[in-house]
Structure formats: structure tokens, C-alpha cells
């Protein structure tokens, strides 16, 4: 057996290097388990044969992102169908998630009809509670007024809030409003002050899950994939034992562990975007139609209390 694939023997247009590069962002259905700040991964197929406790966590929820309702270009002419496929995927999970998080870019152009369509499609999902944060595409015309009317009940400022579920403290942040020329995502002074107050009363042992649209770490600032004032916000999490940050925006899976904080970005349900620096711009990436669903997906998150263990499973829609 040759140790290397020297050239593209299958004549499918994908050589080994290209395949590996693809899989790095496509999300391969791996299960990531975080224990004491160390990421361990298992393949989904191995898990199916021998499920661990992590797969039957005490708190299970699902993250979807970037549904871009209204997008109709070559990269995906039918974003309704792929969102429906995401719902089918969620409904087929062995354990019904307690709720869903939508990490923004619900719509493509902030049109009322686009929001309506997403609401309609998501009604078919088994989890009936959905927590949202806006993406920049949801606050295009009116600084997010419409977004707040629809999803902002009980939130502060531009739509930030926190809640507790089974001992886990969840914080939804907004970093897509009032963006400054030349800059990245912005949280702003008011929100950072609120955040400081929000976590002040928590015990260091409280697991924290933060979710926001644009990554709260510098994924690729040249493409605007980061948040200018995230370091200040993340500073308030230093005394906690387990902090997980879930983002969208970049339409691909990326993960990073920095000290006590684990960062994770989810796939889009609408269209993929290129890996950082591999294209002239971060615009929608068109893949052959038969491959589209293998580069879209959802993230299923399991938490086990007492072990500070969080497992994020990325599954594609294929």
C-alpha cells in the first residue's frame, strides 16, 4: 500500500492536499469533548458503536447559525430547503435538545418576509424554545429595531441578555451594531459594563456559555473575523473554570482553546465561506450541488454537570 497519494487517481478533481484542506473547515462529524481545558476528539461513527456518557449529557442543546433566509445566489439557490434539512437533522438527534440557539444572520436582507419564513420553518423543530442573537444581516436598515421587536423581549440594549439552564449560565451578546469604519465586530461600552455586572455574582465553578454572531476571538481580522473589544469582555471570565464561546458568521467550523476558554464556530445552514485567506474575499463559496449539504450543518452541544465537560458535535446536513 503506498504511503502517499501521489496524484489524483480518482480523477474527481480533489487531490489529497485539497481534500485535507476541505475537511479542515467542512466539519467532519467529530465529537469534541472538553475536559479540564483539553480538547479530545472522537469520530461520530465510533461513538455510535460505543456511546459515552458525553453523548447523553445532562443538558443538551443545539446551535444553528447563518440561515441567511432570502439568499438565492449560485452558492445555494434554496436556503429554505437546507434550513428544513437542518430541522430534520435536529429532530433525528437521539436526545431531543432542551432548546436551540440561533447565532445570527437569521435573514439575508432583514426583510419581514425573511424573518417570517425562518420562524415558520423552525416551528417544525422538536425543541420549542429558541434563543437568538442578531447577525449584521438582521439589523441592516433600522439599527436592529425590527429584530428587537421580534426577538428582543426582555433583553437589554441592542438585544443582549443572560439566562440559566441546569446550573449553566448562558450569555447572549450582540457585536454587530454600530460598527466603526476600519474595525471589526463591536460590543461597546454599555454591553461590556452590563457583562461585568452580570457575571459578578457567579461562583467560579459556574459553567458559562457565551454566544454571539461574530467570533469573539481573532479568527482572521483581514476579513473582519473578530471583535475589537472582545479581550476586555473575555477578561471577566478569567476566574471561571469552564467557559465556552459559540459563534457563527464565518460559515465553517473552527475551534481554539485559550486558557480556560474554548471557542467554537458553527457551520451555516445556507452556504459555505472560504477558509481564511484562501480566496480574494470572504464571499459565499460555490461548491458542486451534490457537495453543498456536506459543507452546511448544525452543532449539537452536551454538558455534563460536575465534570465541567462540554461536548460539541458538528454534523453536516449530508
Amino acid at each position: 500500500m503506498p504511503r502517499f497519494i501521489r496524484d489524483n487517481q480518482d480523477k474527481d478533481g480533489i487531490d489529497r492536499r485539497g481534500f485535507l484542506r476541505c475537511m479542515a473547515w467542512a466539519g467532519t462529524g467529530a465529537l469534541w469533548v472538553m475536559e479540564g481545558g483539553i480538547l479530545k476528539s472522537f469520530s461520530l461513527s465510533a461513538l455510535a458503536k460505543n456511546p459515552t456518557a458525553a453523548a447523553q449529557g445532562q443538558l443538551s442543546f443545539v446551535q444553528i447559525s447563518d440561515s441567511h433566509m432570502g439568499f438565492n445566489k449560485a452558492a445555494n439557490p434554496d436556503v429554505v430547503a437546507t434550513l428544513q434539512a437542518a430541522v430534520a437533522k435536529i429532530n433525528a438527534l437521539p436526545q431531543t435538545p432542551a432548546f436551540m440557539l440561533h447565532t445570527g444572520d437569521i435573514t439575508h436582507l432583514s426583510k419581514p418576509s425573511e424573518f417570517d419564513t425562518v420562524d415558520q420553518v423552525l416551528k417544525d423543530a422538536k425543541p420549542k424554545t429558541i434563543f437568538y442573537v442578531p447577525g449584521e444581516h438582521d439589523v441592516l436598515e433600522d439599527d436592529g429595531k425590527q429584530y428587537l421587536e421580534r426577538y428582543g423581549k426582555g433583553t437589554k440594549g441592542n438585544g443582549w441578555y443572560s439566562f440559566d439552564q441546569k446550573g449553566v449560565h448562558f450569555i447572549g451578546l450582540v457585536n454587530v451594531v454600530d460598527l466603526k469604519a476600519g474595525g471589526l465586530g463591536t460590543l461597546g461600552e454599555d454591553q461590556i459594563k452590563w457583562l461585568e455586572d452580570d457575571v459578578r455574582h457567579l461562583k467560579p465553578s459556574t459553567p458559562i456559555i457565551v454566544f454571539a454572531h461574530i467570533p469573539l476571538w481573532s479568527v482572521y481580522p483581514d476579513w473582519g473575523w473578530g471583535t475589537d473589544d472582545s479581550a476586555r469582555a473575555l477578561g471577566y471570565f478569567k476566574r471561571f473554570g469552564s467557559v465556552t464561546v459559540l459563534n457563527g458568521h464565518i460559515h465553517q467550523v473552527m475551534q481554539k482553546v485559550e486558557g480556560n476558554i474554548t471557542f467554537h464556530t458553527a457551520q451555516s445552514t445556507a452556504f459555505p465561506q472560504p477558509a481564511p485567506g484562501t480566496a480574494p474575499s470572504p464571499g459565499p463559496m460555490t461548491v458542486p450541488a451534490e457537495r453543498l449539504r456536506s459543507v452546511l450543518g448544525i452543532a449539537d452541544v452536551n454538558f455534563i454537570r460536575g465534570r465541567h465537560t462540554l461536548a460539541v458535535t458538528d454534523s453536516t446536513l449530508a
Partner: protein
Amino acid sequence: MKKHQWSLRLVGMTLSAFLLAAGSGPLSAVHSEDKAAPNTAVKIDNFSFAPGSITIAAGATVTWTNNDDVPHVVSSDDKSFRSKALDTDDRFSYTFTKPGTYTYYCAIHPKMTAKVVVQ
């Protein structure tokens, strides 16, 4: 584009010749010259404005066209102008009446920056 620059230069030369002859002549005469200023197009391609810097005469109109698959919002730093969300092939025009340097950016992709210099 070259043609525009050339005709601008011509306008400039005519203007300075006129001003030299008239000394501190009436401003209304300058304005009548400005009406001839060419309108200018800026393309939005691959998350950038092209050209990134343009120089126009006061009174000229700049028209932005979005060629990307995602929307962009043309917004001046000082909020003097802001387009609606421009979907693919949508256009936005703004007429610059006062001389000055106008820096602008995309309100949803703020890494995209450019400027219009109005003379």
C-alpha cells in the same frame, strides 16, 4: 477612467485660467463650470470599493454598484450619507456639493473603507 481624469484636468486648467484672469472673481462663475463635472462610478467587488480613492469636482455624482453576492451598505464616517442595503446589482448615488475629503465604509463590513475627495 483615463478619459474622466483628462477631462477633469481640462476643467481644472480652464478654471485656473479663468480665476487668474478674473482675480477673486464671482463664485457663481465657478459653479457654472462645476456643472460640467463628470459623474463617477465606484464598483463594489470582492468586499472592496474600486477605485478606493476618487477625486471629483463639487457637484459631481458618485454611483456605487454592488457586484458581490452579499449586500453592502455605503456609509460615510460622518454620517452625511448612507445607502440602504445594496443587494447584488443594486446602485446608490450621492451628489457631493461641498469640497472636502469624505471617508466612507461598508456599515456591515467595516473593514471595507475608501474615500471621495471633492475639489
